[in-house]
Protein backbone atom coordinates (compact mmCIF):
# COMPACT_ATOMS: atom_id res chain seq x y z
CA UNK A 1 0.00 0.00 0.00
CA UNK A 2 1.34 3.44 -0.87
CA UNK A 3 0.06 6.72 0.54
CA UNK A 4 -2.28 7.43 -2.35
CA UNK A 5 -3.96 4.07 -1.89
CA UNK A 6 -4.00 4.47 1.85
CA UNK A 7 -5.77 7.82 1.69
CA UNK A 8 -8.91 6.25 0.38
CA UNK A 9 -8.70 3.40 2.86
CA UNK A 10 -8.08 5.51 5.94
CA UNK A 11 -11.67 6.67 6.08
CA UNK A 12 -12.99 3.15 5.67
CA UNK A 13 -10.57 1.98 8.33
CA UNK A 14 -11.63 4.67 10.79
CA UNK A 15 -15.26 3.84 10.07
CA UNK A 16 -14.63 0.22 10.91
CA UNK A 17 -15.44 -0.93 7.40
CA UNK A 18 -12.27 -2.87 6.69
CA UNK A 19 -11.74 -6.48 7.59
CA UNK A 20 -9.25 -9.26 6.97
CA UNK A 21 -6.42 -8.62 4.58
CA UNK A 22 -7.54 -5.06 3.75
CA UNK A 23 -7.41 -4.16 7.40
CA UNK A 24 -4.04 -5.77 7.89
CA UNK A 25 -2.58 -3.99 4.89
CA UNK A 26 -3.69 -0.54 6.00
CA UNK A 27 -2.55 -1.23 9.54
CA UNK A 28 0.86 -2.20 8.27
CA UNK A 29 1.04 1.02 6.25
CA UNK A 30 -0.10 3.13 9.19
CA UNK A 31 2.60 1.55 11.30
CA UNK A 32 5.20 2.63 8.77
CA UNK A 33 3.89 5.99 7.56
CA UNK A 34 3.67 8.87 9.97
CA UNK A 35 1.70 11.09 7.62
CA UNK A 36 -1.10 8.59 7.05
CA UNK A 37 -1.10 7.55 10.69
CA UNK A 38 -1.64 11.14 11.67
CA UNK A 39 -4.48 11.74 9.26
CA UNK A 40 -6.05 8.52 10.53
CA UNK A 41 -5.78 9.72 14.11
CA UNK A 42 -7.17 13.14 13.28
CA UNK A 43 -10.11 11.72 11.41
CA UNK A 44 -10.94 9.47 14.32
CA UNK A 45 -10.73 12.38 16.72
CA UNK A 46 -12.77 14.61 14.45
CA UNK A 47 -15.46 11.98 14.15
CA UNK A 48 -15.62 11.52 17.90
CA UNK A 49 -15.66 15.28 18.48
CA UNK A 50 -18.53 15.84 16.06
CA UNK A 51 -20.50 13.14 17.74
CA UNK A 52 -19.77 14.47 21.20
CA UNK A 53 -20.88 17.95 20.16
CA UNK A 54 -24.08 16.78 18.53
CA UNK A 55 -25.97 14.74 21.09
CA UNK A 56 -29.35 13.37 20.20
CA UNK A 57 -32.04 15.90 21.09
CA UNK A 58 -34.88 14.43 23.13
CA UNK A 59 -38.10 13.53 21.40
CA UNK A 60 -40.50 16.37 22.23
CA UNK A 61 -43.30 15.19 24.49
CA UNK A 62 -46.00 16.64 22.28
CA UNK A 63 -44.55 14.90 19.24
CA UNK A 64 -44.55 11.62 21.12
CA UNK A 65 -48.20 12.20 21.92
CA UNK A 66 -48.96 13.18 18.33
CA UNK A 67 -47.34 9.99 17.04
CA UNK A 68 -49.46 7.99 19.47
CA UNK A 69 -52.61 9.63 18.19
CA UNK A 70 -51.59 9.10 14.59
CA UNK A 71 -51.07 5.40 15.23
CA UNK A 72 -54.29 5.07 17.19
CA UNK A 73 -56.18 6.64 14.34
CA UNK A 74 -54.43 4.63 11.66
CA UNK A 75 -56.77 1.65 11.62
CA UNK A 76 -56.38 -1.80 13.05
CA UNK A 77 -54.36 -3.76 10.54
CA UNK A 78 -51.67 -2.37 8.30
CA UNK A 79 -52.46 -2.46 4.60
CA UNK A 80 -55.52 -4.56 4.23
CA UNK A 81 -54.64 -6.49 1.15
CA UNK A 82 -56.82 -9.07 -0.51
CA UNK A 83 -59.84 -8.31 1.59
CA UNK A 84 -63.09 -9.72 0.44
CA UNK A 85 -65.00 -6.55 -0.46
CA UNK A 86 -62.60 -5.79 -3.25
CA UNK A 87 -63.30 -9.04 -5.01
CA UNK A 88 -65.67 -8.88 -7.94
CA UNK A 89 -69.18 -9.56 -6.72
CA UNK A 90 -70.06 -13.12 -7.59
CA UNK A 91 -67.52 -14.58 -9.90
CA UNK A 92 -67.96 -17.66 -12.02
CA UNK A 93 -65.90 -20.60 -10.88
CA UNK A 94 -63.42 -20.25 -13.72
CA UNK A 95 -62.75 -16.61 -12.99
CA UNK A 96 -62.49 -17.39 -9.32
CA UNK A 97 -59.82 -19.96 -10.06
CA UNK A 98 -57.83 -17.47 -12.11
CA UNK A 99 -58.36 -14.89 -9.41
CA UNK A 100 -57.01 -17.19 -6.76
CA UNK A 101 -53.97 -17.88 -8.85
CA UNK A 102 -53.49 -14.18 -9.13
CA UNK A 103 -53.84 -13.68 -5.42
CA UNK A 104 -51.42 -16.35 -4.40
CA UNK A 105 -48.90 -15.51 -7.05
CA UNK A 106 -46.04 -13.54 -5.68
CA UNK A 107 -43.30 -12.80 -8.16
CA UNK A 108 -39.81 -12.09 -6.89
CA UNK A 109 -39.06 -9.75 -9.74
CA UNK A 110 -40.72 -6.72 -11.14
CA UNK A 111 -40.42 -5.39 -14.65
CA UNK A 112 -37.89 -2.71 -15.36
CA UNK A 113 -40.62 -0.26 -16.14
CA UNK A 114 -41.75 -0.33 -12.51
CA UNK A 115 -38.29 0.39 -11.23
CA UNK A 116 -37.97 3.13 -13.77
CA UNK A 117 -41.28 4.69 -12.76
CA UNK A 118 -40.17 4.63 -9.14
CA UNK A 119 -36.83 6.21 -9.88
CA UNK A 120 -38.41 8.88 -12.04
CA UNK A 121 -40.87 9.58 -9.25
CA UNK A 122 -38.04 10.15 -6.83
CA UNK A 123 -35.80 12.29 -8.98
CA UNK A 124 -38.30 15.02 -9.87
CA UNK A 125 -36.92 16.24 -13.15
CA UNK A 126 -38.29 19.45 -14.59
CA UNK A 127 -41.46 19.16 -16.65
CA UNK A 128 -41.69 19.73 -20.40
CA UNK A 129 -45.16 21.13 -19.99
CA UNK A 130 -46.69 22.61 -16.88
CA UNK A 131 -50.37 23.25 -16.33
CA UNK A 132 -53.46 22.23 -14.47
CA UNK A 133 -55.53 21.37 -17.53
CA UNK A 134 -55.23 17.65 -18.18
CA UNK A 135 -56.58 18.12 -21.70
CA UNK A 136 -53.91 20.51 -22.87
CA UNK A 137 -51.22 18.39 -21.26
CA UNK A 138 -52.53 15.39 -23.18
CA UNK A 139 -52.56 17.28 -26.44
CA UNK A 140 -48.99 18.46 -25.92
CA UNK A 141 -47.89 14.86 -26.44
CA UNK A 142 -49.69 14.63 -29.78
CA UNK A 143 -47.11 14.21 -32.53
CA UNK A 144 -44.39 13.60 -30.00
CA UNK A 145 -45.40 10.03 -29.31
CA UNK A 146 -46.70 7.36 -31.63
CA UNK A 147 -49.70 6.68 -29.43
CA UNK A 148 -52.39 8.95 -28.04
CA UNK A 149 -52.05 10.08 -24.43
CA UNK A 150 -55.11 10.76 -22.34
CA UNK A 151 -54.26 12.16 -18.95
CA UNK A 152 -56.99 10.63 -16.80
CA UNK A 153 -58.77 13.05 -14.53
CA UNK A 154 -58.87 10.54 -11.63
CA UNK A 155 -62.46 11.60 -11.08
CA UNK A 156 -61.39 14.73 -9.25
CA UNK A 157 -59.24 12.86 -6.74
CA UNK A 158 -56.07 14.30 -8.25
CA UNK A 159 -55.32 17.30 -10.41
CA UNK A 160 -52.83 17.61 -13.26
CA UNK A 161 -49.58 19.45 -12.68
CA UNK A 162 -47.53 18.76 -15.79
CA UNK A 163 -45.86 16.23 -17.99
CA UNK A 164 -42.72 15.31 -19.82
CA UNK A 165 -41.32 12.82 -22.27
CA UNK A 166 -39.38 9.91 -20.83
CA UNK A 167 -37.53 6.95 -22.23
CA UNK A 168 -39.10 3.62 -21.46
CA UNK A 169 -36.57 1.07 -22.57
CA UNK A 170 -35.89 2.03 -26.15
CA UNK A 171 -39.18 3.76 -26.73
CA UNK A 172 -40.60 7.05 -25.60
CA UNK A 173 -43.37 7.38 -23.09
CA UNK A 174 -45.36 10.08 -21.34
CA UNK A 175 -44.80 10.94 -17.72
CA UNK A 176 -47.63 12.86 -16.10
CA UNK A 177 -47.55 14.39 -12.66
CA UNK A 178 -50.60 14.96 -10.48
CA UNK A 179 -51.34 16.19 -7.05
CA UNK A 180 -53.91 14.24 -5.11
CA UNK A 181 -56.57 16.01 -3.13
CA UNK A 182 -54.70 14.93 0.00
CA UNK A 183 -51.56 16.70 -1.22
CA UNK A 184 -49.70 13.58 -2.34
CA UNK A 185 -47.69 13.60 -5.51
CA UNK A 186 -48.93 11.04 -7.98
CA UNK A 187 -47.12 10.18 -11.19
CA UNK A 188 -48.50 8.33 -14.17
CA UNK A 189 -46.26 6.76 -16.76
CA UNK A 190 -47.96 5.93 -20.04
CA UNK A 191 -46.09 3.64 -22.38
CA UNK A 192 -46.54 1.22 -25.22
CA UNK A 193 -46.01 -2.21 -23.71
CA UNK A 194 -46.23 -4.02 -27.08
CA UNK A 195 -46.53 -7.67 -26.21
CA UNK A 196 -44.25 -7.66 -23.23
CA UNK A 197 -45.67 -9.15 -20.10
CA UNK A 198 -45.28 -7.05 -16.99
CA UNK A 199 -44.03 -8.59 -13.79
CA UNK A 200 -44.80 -7.19 -10.36
CA UNK A 201 -44.68 -8.60 -6.86
CA UNK A 202 -48.45 -8.60 -6.32
CA UNK A 203 -51.53 -8.93 -8.41
CA UNK A 204 -55.00 -7.93 -7.61
CA UNK A 205 -58.20 -8.25 -9.59
CA UNK A 206 -60.44 -5.25 -9.18
CA UNK A 207 -63.82 -5.38 -10.88
CA UNK A 208 -62.47 -7.89 -13.33
CA UNK A 209 -59.45 -5.81 -14.19
CA UNK A 210 -55.96 -6.92 -13.32
CA UNK A 211 -53.76 -4.48 -11.44
CA UNK A 212 -50.17 -5.31 -10.59
CA UNK A 213 -48.55 -3.80 -7.54
CA UNK A 214 -44.96 -3.16 -6.69
CA UNK A 215 -43.17 -0.58 -4.70
CA UNK A 216 -40.10 0.74 -3.04
CA UNK A 217 -39.72 2.03 0.48
CA UNK A 218 -42.59 4.37 1.22
CA UNK A 219 -43.91 4.41 -2.32
CA UNK A 220 -46.21 2.09 -4.15
CA UNK A 221 -46.74 1.42 -7.78
CA UNK A 222 -49.76 0.09 -9.64
CA UNK A 223 -49.58 -1.13 -13.23
CA UNK A 224 -52.48 -1.81 -15.50
CA UNK A 225 -53.29 -2.03 -19.16
CA UNK A 226 -55.98 -0.05 -20.80
CA UNK A 227 -56.77 -0.18 -24.49
CA UNK A 228 -53.41 -1.57 -25.42
CA UNK A 229 -51.37 0.94 -23.48
CA UNK A 230 -49.51 0.34 -20.24
CA UNK A 231 -50.01 2.63 -17.25
CA UNK A 232 -47.82 2.82 -14.16
CA UNK A 233 -49.13 4.90 -11.28
CA UNK A 234 -46.55 5.75 -8.62
CA UNK A 235 -47.25 7.52 -5.38
CA UNK A 236 -46.51 7.61 -1.72
CA UNK A 237 -50.09 6.60 -1.06
CA UNK A 238 -50.64 3.15 0.40
CA UNK A 239 -51.87 0.35 -1.81
CA UNK A 240 -55.54 0.72 -0.92
CA UNK A 241 -55.60 4.44 -1.57
CA UNK A 242 -53.68 3.86 -4.78
CA UNK A 243 -56.21 1.24 -5.84
CA UNK A 244 -59.04 3.69 -5.32
CA UNK A 245 -57.20 6.24 -7.39
CA UNK A 246 -56.55 3.77 -10.19
CA UNK A 247 -60.19 2.74 -10.14
CA UNK A 248 -61.15 6.36 -10.58
CA UNK A 249 -58.97 6.58 -13.67
CA UNK A 250 -60.74 3.82 -15.54
CA UNK A 251 -63.13 4.96 -18.18
CA UNK A 252 -66.73 4.24 -17.34
CA UNK A 253 -67.66 0.96 -19.01
CA UNK A 254 -68.41 1.45 -22.68
CA UNK A 255 -67.36 5.08 -22.81
CA UNK A 256 -65.26 5.78 -25.82
CA UNK A 257 -62.23 7.96 -25.53
CA UNK A 258 -61.65 10.58 -28.15
CA UNK A 259 -58.58 9.91 -30.25
Amino acid at each position, binding site marked *: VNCAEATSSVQAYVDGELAGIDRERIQRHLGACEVCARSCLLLGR*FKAAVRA*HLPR*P*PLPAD*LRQRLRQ*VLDGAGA*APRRRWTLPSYPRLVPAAVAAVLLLGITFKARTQSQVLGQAQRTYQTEMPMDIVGSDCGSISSWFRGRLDFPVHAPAFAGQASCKGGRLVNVGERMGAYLVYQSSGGHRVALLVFDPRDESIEAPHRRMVNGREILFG*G*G*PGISTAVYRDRGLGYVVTSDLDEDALTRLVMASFHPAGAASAP
Partner: protein
Amino acid sequence: MPLFKSRPSKADFEREAMPHMSALYAAALRMTRNERDAEDLVQDALLRAYRFFDSFEAGTNCKAWLFRILTNAFCNRYREREREQEVMSEAESSDANVEQFLAGSPTSGRDAENALLGRMVSADVERALAAVPQDFRMAVILADLEDFSYKEIAEIMECPAGTVMSRLYRGRKILQGLLHKYAIEQGIIPASHPAPEVDTKADARASAEPVDMAAYRRRRQAGGESS
Protein backbone atom coordinates in the same frame (compact mmCIF):
# COMPACT_ATOMS: atom_id res chain seq x y z
CA MET B 1 -48.84 -17.24 0.80
CA PRO B 2 -50.16 -13.79 1.49
CA LEU B 3 -53.67 -15.07 2.02
CA PHE B 4 -52.66 -16.99 5.10
CA LYS B 5 -49.65 -15.07 6.24
CA SER B 6 -50.27 -13.76 9.69
CA ARG B 7 -50.63 -10.03 9.52
CA PRO B 8 -48.33 -7.95 11.65
CA SER B 9 -50.34 -6.30 14.37
CA LYS B 10 -50.20 -2.77 15.61
CA ALA B 11 -48.51 -4.07 18.73
CA ASP B 12 -45.79 -5.66 16.59
CA PHE B 13 -45.26 -2.37 14.85
CA GLU B 14 -45.09 -0.43 18.06
CA ARG B 15 -42.62 -2.83 19.57
CA GLU B 16 -40.35 -2.69 16.52
CA ALA B 17 -40.62 0.92 15.47
CA MET B 18 -41.36 3.13 18.45
CA PRO B 19 -37.96 2.70 20.14
CA HIS B 20 -36.37 4.36 17.08
CA MET B 21 -38.51 7.49 17.11
CA SER B 22 -36.01 9.65 18.96
CA ALA B 23 -33.25 8.64 16.51
CA LEU B 24 -35.60 9.46 13.63
CA TYR B 25 -36.47 12.80 15.14
CA ALA B 26 -32.83 13.71 15.76
CA ALA B 27 -31.92 12.92 12.16
CA ALA B 28 -35.03 14.66 10.83
CA LEU B 29 -34.14 17.76 12.79
CA ARG B 30 -30.68 17.87 11.25
CA MET B 31 -31.95 17.10 7.80
CA THR B 32 -34.73 19.72 7.80
CA ARG B 33 -32.92 22.15 10.16
CA ASN B 34 -36.28 23.11 11.56
CA GLU B 35 -38.26 21.66 14.46
CA ARG B 36 -41.63 21.96 12.89
CA ASP B 37 -40.60 20.33 9.62
CA ALA B 38 -38.79 17.63 11.57
CA GLU B 39 -41.91 16.79 13.55
CA ASP B 40 -44.03 16.64 10.41
CA LEU B 41 -41.43 14.50 8.70
CA VAL B 42 -41.28 12.00 11.56
CA GLN B 43 -45.04 11.79 11.67
CA ASP B 44 -45.17 11.26 7.93
CA ALA B 45 -42.47 8.59 8.09
CA LEU B 46 -44.18 6.80 10.98
CA LEU B 47 -47.44 6.64 9.13
CA ARG B 48 -45.82 5.40 5.96
CA ALA B 49 -43.86 2.81 7.89
CA TYR B 50 -47.05 1.61 9.52
CA ARG B 51 -48.84 1.33 6.20
CA PHE B 52 -45.94 -0.54 4.67
CA PHE B 53 -45.11 -2.57 7.74
CA ASP B 54 -45.98 -5.84 6.04
CA SER B 55 -43.10 -5.21 3.65
CA PHE B 56 -40.73 -5.15 6.59
CA GLU B 57 -39.10 -8.52 7.18
CA ALA B 58 -39.19 -9.36 10.83
CA GLY B 59 -35.74 -9.90 12.27
CA THR B 60 -34.02 -7.52 9.85
CA ASN B 61 -32.76 -4.08 10.75
CA CYS B 62 -35.82 -2.06 11.61
CA LYS B 63 -33.88 1.13 12.29
CA ALA B 64 -32.32 1.09 8.82
CA TRP B 65 -35.73 0.35 7.28
CA LEU B 66 -37.29 3.29 9.12
CA PHE B 67 -34.45 5.59 8.11
CA ARG B 68 -34.92 4.59 4.51
CA ILE B 69 -38.56 5.60 4.72
CA LEU B 70 -37.64 8.83 6.50
CA THR B 71 -35.02 9.69 3.88
CA ASN B 72 -37.44 8.93 1.12
CA ALA B 73 -40.11 11.10 2.66
CA PHE B 74 -37.58 13.84 3.19
CA CYS B 75 -36.45 13.76 -0.43
CA ASN B 76 -40.02 13.80 -1.70
CA ARG B 77 -40.92 16.76 0.44
CA TYR B 78 -37.89 18.95 0.62
CA ARG B 79 -35.66 18.14 -2.30
CA GLU B 80 -37.23 20.69 -4.55
CA ARG B 81 -37.22 23.44 -1.98
CA GLU B 82 -33.55 22.90 -1.22
CA ARG B 83 -32.37 22.52 -4.75
CA GLU B 84 -32.01 26.18 -5.54
CA GLN B 85 -30.21 27.07 -2.35
CA GLU B 86 -27.72 24.35 -2.88
CA VAL B 87 -26.78 24.97 -6.44
CA MET B 88 -24.15 27.39 -5.26
CA SER B 89 -22.65 25.31 -2.55
CA GLU B 90 -22.79 22.20 -4.71
CA ALA B 91 -20.80 23.96 -7.37
CA GLU B 92 -18.25 25.01 -4.85
CA SER B 93 -17.90 21.62 -3.38
CA SER B 94 -17.13 19.72 -6.54
CA ASP B 95 -14.35 17.27 -5.90
CA ALA B 96 -11.51 19.30 -7.30
CA ASN B 97 -12.54 22.42 -5.47
CA VAL B 98 -12.98 20.80 -2.12
CA GLU B 99 -9.70 19.05 -2.49
CA GLN B 100 -7.93 22.21 -3.42
CA PHE B 101 -9.73 24.28 -0.88
CA LEU B 102 -9.25 21.97 2.00
CA ALA B 103 -6.03 20.24 1.09
CA GLY B 104 -4.47 20.36 4.49
CA SER B 105 -0.79 19.69 4.72
CA PRO B 106 -0.19 16.71 6.93
CA THR B 107 2.48 18.54 8.86
CA SER B 108 1.90 22.27 8.71
CA GLY B 109 -1.82 22.02 9.40
CA ARG B 110 -1.29 19.99 12.51
CA ASP B 111 -1.38 22.76 15.04
CA ALA B 112 -4.45 24.34 13.57
CA GLU B 113 -6.30 21.06 13.39
CA ASN B 114 -5.39 20.14 16.89
CA ALA B 115 -6.37 23.57 18.11
CA LEU B 116 -9.65 23.27 16.28
CA LEU B 117 -10.43 19.87 17.70
CA GLY B 118 -9.77 21.08 21.21
CA ARG B 119 -11.86 24.21 20.93
CA MET B 120 -14.88 23.22 18.91
CA VAL B 121 -18.12 24.67 20.23
CA SER B 122 -21.32 22.67 19.97
CA ALA B 123 -23.31 25.54 18.51
CA ASP B 124 -20.69 25.93 15.77
CA VAL B 125 -20.71 22.23 14.97
CA GLU B 126 -24.49 22.34 14.68
CA ARG B 127 -24.32 25.42 12.45
CA ALA B 128 -21.59 23.94 10.29
CA LEU B 129 -23.46 20.68 9.82
CA ALA B 130 -26.56 22.61 8.82
CA ALA B 131 -24.55 24.35 6.12
CA VAL B 132 -23.27 21.13 4.54
CA PRO B 133 -25.17 20.38 1.32
CA GLN B 134 -27.97 17.89 1.69
CA ASP B 135 -26.54 14.64 0.35
CA PHE B 136 -23.24 15.07 2.15
CA ARG B 137 -24.96 16.14 5.32
CA MET B 138 -27.16 13.09 5.24
CA ALA B 139 -24.17 10.78 4.83
CA VAL B 140 -22.46 12.40 7.83
CA ILE B 141 -25.61 12.19 9.95
CA LEU B 142 -26.11 8.53 9.12
CA ALA B 143 -22.49 7.49 9.60
CA ASP B 144 -21.24 9.69 12.40
CA LEU B 145 -24.35 10.32 14.45
CA GLU B 146 -26.32 7.15 13.86
CA ASP B 147 -23.54 4.61 13.34
CA PHE B 148 -24.89 3.06 10.19
CA SER B 149 -22.48 1.03 8.08
CA TYR B 150 -21.67 1.99 4.50
CA LYS B 151 -23.87 -0.81 3.30
CA GLU B 152 -26.81 0.35 5.36
CA ILE B 153 -26.30 3.95 4.26
CA ALA B 154 -26.16 2.79 0.65
CA GLU B 155 -29.54 1.16 1.14
CA ILE B 156 -31.00 4.09 3.01
CA MET B 157 -29.81 6.65 0.45
CA GLU B 158 -30.32 4.28 -2.46
CA CYS B 159 -26.88 4.76 -3.94
CA PRO B 160 -23.77 2.59 -4.39
CA ALA B 161 -21.40 2.15 -1.45
CA GLY B 162 -18.70 4.02 -3.37
CA THR B 163 -20.98 7.04 -3.52
CA VAL B 164 -21.54 6.76 0.23
CA MET B 165 -17.80 6.89 0.77
CA SER B 166 -17.28 9.92 -1.40
CA ARG B 167 -20.27 11.76 0.09
CA LEU B 168 -19.02 11.01 3.54
CA TYR B 169 -15.52 12.09 2.65
CA ARG B 170 -16.68 15.34 1.15
CA GLY B 171 -19.24 15.94 3.85
CA ARG B 172 -16.62 15.65 6.55
CA LYS B 173 -14.19 17.82 4.61
CA ILE B 174 -16.77 20.55 4.15
CA LEU B 175 -17.64 20.32 7.82
CA GLN B 176 -14.00 20.67 8.77
CA GLY B 177 -13.59 23.59 6.40
CA LEU B 178 -16.57 25.42 7.87
CA LEU B 179 -15.40 24.84 11.42
CA HIS B 180 -12.02 26.24 10.50
CA LYS B 181 -13.71 29.26 9.06
CA TYR B 182 -15.84 29.88 12.15
CA ALA B 183 -12.87 29.38 14.41
CA ILE B 184 -10.86 31.94 12.51
CA GLU B 185 -13.77 34.38 12.47
CA GLN B 186 -14.06 34.11 16.21
CA GLY B 187 -10.35 34.34 16.75
CA ILE B 188 -10.25 30.89 18.28
CA ILE B 189 -7.48 29.92 15.96
CA PRO B 190 -5.25 32.57 14.45
CA ALA B 191 -5.91 33.57 10.88
CA SER B 192 -2.47 32.96 9.64
CA HIS B 193 -1.73 34.55 6.32
CA PRO B 194 -4.27 33.57 3.69
CA ALA B 195 -3.74 30.54 1.54
CA PRO B 196 -1.29 31.24 -1.27
CA GLU B 197 -2.62 33.02 -4.29
CA VAL B 198 -1.46 30.47 -6.80
CA ASP B 199 -1.06 27.04 -5.42
CA THR B 200 0.29 24.34 -7.58
CA LYS B 201 -0.90 20.97 -6.50
CA ALA B 202 2.36 20.11 -4.84
CA ASP B 203 2.54 23.41 -3.03
CA ALA B 204 -1.02 23.13 -1.90
CA ARG B 205 -0.24 19.92 -0.12
CA ALA B 206 2.95 21.22 1.39
CA SER B 207 1.92 24.69 2.45
CA ALA B 208 -1.78 24.83 3.12
CA GLU B 209 -2.82 26.88 6.10
CA PRO B 210 -6.19 26.84 7.77
CA VAL B 211 -8.37 27.92 4.93
CA ASP B 212 -10.77 30.80 4.91
CA MET B 213 -13.90 30.14 2.88
CA ALA B 214 -14.38 33.84 2.13
CA ALA B 215 -10.82 34.20 0.95
CA TYR B 216 -11.26 31.13 -1.15
CA ARG B 217 -14.38 32.55 -2.77
CA ARG B 218 -12.68 35.86 -3.44
CA ARG B 219 -9.79 34.09 -5.00
CA ARG B 220 -12.02 32.03 -7.22
CA GLN B 221 -13.92 35.07 -8.37
CA ALA B 222 -10.82 37.08 -9.00
CA GLY B 223 -8.67 34.47 -10.60
CA GLY B 224 -11.26 32.16 -12.05
CA GLU B 225 -8.73 29.43 -11.56
CA SER B 226 -10.41 26.12 -11.28
CA SER B 227 -7.81 23.45 -11.80
